[in-house]
């Protein structure tokens, strides 16, 4: 799965996710990527999110929408909202994977509970960051 979240100079957010699914999946199985609110979500009032991992868990935990809602309604910092879903709620139901997220202000958050996630980020005026492994 691949994905991207962005904030432009107007402060508008967007999220995109694309995937081939899981190896050896049953034909017709749909994961979280195309399910709005599970693997992809964007609201200027909360955050933009794209996910990767075990799609069924992300659907059951409505991960992307929950993160935006935690920012919008509960006033959580984006990092804490992502941490709660990726490091607490998903592992509780055996959900492996990660999330990238961006809010109307501040730096992007990239978090995962697996051994690695191919990832990169950049902010205006800052250096690009790129990572693969958990450490």
């Amino acid at each position, binding site marked *: *799965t*691949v994905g*991207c*979240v*962005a*904030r*432009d*100079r*107007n*402060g*508008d*957010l*967007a999220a*995109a*996710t*694309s*995937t*081939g*699914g*899981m*190896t*050896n*999946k049953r*034909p*017709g*199985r749909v*994961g979280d*990527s*195309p*399910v*709005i609110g599970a*693997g*992809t979500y*964007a609201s200027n009032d909360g955050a933009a999110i794209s996910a*990767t*991992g075990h799609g069924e868990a992300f659907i059951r935990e409505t991960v992307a929408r929950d993160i935006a809602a935690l920012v919008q309604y509960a006033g959580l910092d984006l990092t804490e909202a992502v941490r709660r879903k990726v490091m607490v709620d998903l592992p509780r139901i055996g959900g*492996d994977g990660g999330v*990238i997220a*961006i809010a109307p202000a*501040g*730096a*992007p*958050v*990239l978090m*995962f509970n*697996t*051994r*690695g*996630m*191919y*990832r*990169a*980020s*950049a*902010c*205006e005026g800052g250096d*690009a960051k*790129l990572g*693969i*492994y958990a450490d």
Partner: protein
Amino acid sequence: CGWALALHGGAGTILKETMTPDREAGYRAGLEAALAAGREVLSAGGSAEDAVVATVMVLEDNPLFNAGRGSVLTSAGTVEMDAAIMRGRDRAAGTVAGIHGVRNPICLARRVMERSDHVMFCGAGAQVFALEQGFEELPASYFETEHRRNQLREAQEKNEISLDHNDHKYG
């Protein structure tokens, strides 16, 4: 705060000890190319939705990542792709599921968002929509790679369904 961008190319059991230098260099180059595409849009004053599409298209075209060309294979040995896009300012969204033959599924999802009254098309209906919108249908050989066929064979031998990336070596 200005513009900002983040991308991912999948998660899983990615271990440095089972990664070859060449393969790691390939992944890093792919991530850098995708990041550059998004940065170019945003630094020129482009929209967030243009940036996420430009970024994802680069990743879809790179066979190292599980989307577009290089997608993993189903138990039937076929490619089934899903994609979604959402715009934050008005919560417009477009998604497609279970499609094949479309080089950049994210562009089809965007077309659903911009040129239909709906949010999601799946399967045969999505294929018809793609043709109506002028998307070329590419042969399966464009999407399939030897690496993915090896992954499928191993997954079937183990009777498992696996994430994009694991620590198995092939060849």
